[in-house]
């Protein structure tokens, strides 16, 4: 067991994958000598060479499009998109090509491509550097979408993503890159929790709080604060955003009868909407109140001086928990 930052944990996972499988290649802008703008690929080009850790031209559609060709040829490309907001030039390749190739060829061509995306806000960046674009991709069949929330998962899930024969969008919460955590580097991938499974990270009985990526930590902190007030919150880390592991969420909601979902992305058409609808369908008779969403607002990600208002924080989540429980809250007395 070692203590690693999030960024080092991903680095260690990438290193393992490069060592274990000669078909794994890394591609992206600035991932070589610089080690990526967040240093996630630090030292990998030095150790594995320029042919396996490739500094790509500044062209996102090019990075993903050539990865499609490499995958055709039997490689397992791991592409880094430097920041969430720069994935859009590659959107066409991802949704039209990467996502559909397996279906189109009835399984004859696999696209074992991993696309690493630092996502979310909270680091005071200029525009296009703090987006939460996951819903665009969860809406696209054929893609697996995961978001990691702690160094151990970051380490194992990057390897599972690379080993997956399906394309995986691997979202990294950039504001947590420097958070440290225990990482068991000897963990056997075959015994680790599978890539598409959710985890209950705090058990509770009064309300189910669902989150993923950067907000899992905030959700856990909120659960601790709620416990001080005698409220028992069960926190679920979704881990996989597509497909969502509904059985785990369902079981929890059947127990608590209440659901709060929190994410940084805007509310409309977001993952929270999908989960609220699905759980309402599956657990209608168990629900004691309407599901509550605590999300970013339906606005473009704001300039950095205002981002703390946009991002759900501990207090906003607790206010949502109060709403779910029918306790006094900021919207008390309002209809709908």
């Amino acid at each position: 067991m070692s203590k690693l930052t999030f960024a080092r944990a991903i680095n260690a996972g990438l290193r393992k994958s490069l060592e274990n499988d000669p078909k794994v290649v890394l591609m992206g802008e600035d991932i070589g000598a610089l080690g990526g703008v967040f240093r996630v690929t630090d030292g990998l080009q030095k150790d594995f060479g320029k042919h396996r850790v490739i500094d790509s031209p500044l062209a996102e559609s090019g990075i993903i499009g050539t990865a499609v060709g490499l995958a055709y040829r039997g490689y397992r490309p791991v592409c880094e998109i430097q920041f969430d907001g720069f994935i859009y030039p590659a959107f066409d390749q991802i949704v039209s090509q990467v996502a559909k190739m397996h279906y189109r060829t009835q399984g004859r061509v696999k696209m074992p491509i991993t696309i690493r995306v630092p996502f979310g806000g909270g680091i005071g960046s200029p525009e296009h550097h703090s987006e939460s674009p996951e819903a665009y991709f969860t809406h696209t069949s054929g893609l697996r979408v995961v978001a990691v929330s702690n160094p151990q998962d970051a380490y194992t899930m990057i390897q599972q993503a690379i080993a997956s024969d399906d394309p995986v969008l691997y979202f990294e919460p950039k504001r947590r890159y420097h958070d440290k955590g225990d990482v068991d580097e000897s963990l056997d991938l075959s015994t680790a929790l599978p890539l598409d499974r959710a985890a209950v990270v705090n058990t509770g009985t009064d309300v189910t709080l669902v989150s993923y990526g950067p907000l899992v930590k905030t959700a856990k902190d909120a659960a601790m604060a709620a416990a001080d007030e005698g409220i028992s919150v069960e926190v679920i880390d979704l881990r996989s955003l597509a497909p969502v592991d509904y059985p785990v969420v369902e079981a929890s909601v059947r127990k608590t009868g209440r659901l709060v979902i929190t994410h940084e992305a805007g509310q409309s058409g977001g993952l929270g909407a999908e989960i609220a609808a699905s759980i309402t369908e599956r657990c209608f008779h168990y629900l004691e109140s309407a599901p509550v969403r605590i999300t970013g607002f339906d606005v473009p990600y704001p300039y950095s001086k205002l981002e703390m208002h946009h991002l759900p924080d501990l207090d906003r989540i607790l206010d949502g928990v109060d709403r779910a429980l029918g306790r006094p809250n900021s919207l008390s007395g309002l209809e709908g």
Partner: protein
Amino acid sequence: MLTDQAGKGVHQGTPGPGQSAQNPLRTGGDLLQLVSPEGDRISHPEFDVWVRDIGDEQLCSLYEDMTVIRRIDAEATALQRQGELALWPPLLGQEAAQIGSSRSLRDDDFVFPSYRESGVAYVRGAHLSEIARVWRGNASYGWDPQRINVATPQIIIGSQSLHATGYAMGVQLDGASTAVLAYFGDGATSEGDVNEAMVFAASYQAPVVFFCQNNHWAISEPVRIQSHVQLADRPTGFGIPSMRVDGNDVLAVMAATRVALDRARKGGGPTFIEAVTYRMGPHTTADDPTRYRDPNELEDWAAKDPILRLHKLLEAKGLLTEDVAARVKAKADAVAAELRSSCIDMPDPQPLDVFNHVYSTPNSWIERQKDHYSRYLNSFNQPVEEGAL
């Protein structure tokens, strides 16, 4: 009338040779240079005429602008280090490319910059607080684009080249004589957008000038990762003529830009300029170039410093009198002080500003979220009412 920081009229652009409608265009290959790194004026049969109006006073004024924007750059970097700006993209080393090109523009010309063209914004009349506020995190746009005919800074690499081309197509539809200038870096030439912009510009012969500042680096990636040929050789494949100029030579940049703008105005279509320069600082204040850059390379380029070069020329001509030097220094000091105070005094945005301007007409989704958030904020001042939602 656009005015710059000093309140003086923004430079009226190309006087052009008038009688000689000949546009000396060249492709790649040799670098256009009118002033050597030693500060000697190199005469050129075709291009001299394009800068013949640049007399002593004009040279001093170019020198002043370059010195001032270097000072803006230094002050902004210091402000970032002091936590007053969240980030700053330095333009150190690119002063001649930015001043030479932007001072070739006419007021009615329109500019589409990337994030690094603070010097261009200054020349076009952006207020210093407007230059600072994006980087302070107080707004996502700098200045009013319609006031100074400069689009808001673009962070998505290369996108603005398409916008510039579209604007130029609009100019064409209007039958106007405006020219459009798009700035981007060497890295940007790899993006689909820049290549698609060249396709459109060539197909419609749009009056747009693609001004590529080849500063040799795209963050940590040297230009050779972006292109196997000289950048100026690329556009010719799209049917766009190009020029390769010494980007640290303000006169050469001016001559080439004037040629291209004149060509655009006269219906000659798009032109590509590769200004060969060097980014002497980090990519942004968040970057550490020692991880990827050979310090010797920096030294070589320091010897070609654009301001030093003009300094030498002025000295040789006996123009750099104590008076002129003092005036330039005073101006730079004043601008730096104004940048600092306007940055520090900038009022913070209000929490509910987060909801403003998403749509031009009210939107019930957002109004509801705004109302809820305002109730939430108010709930901290007063105990929340009893009674559940």
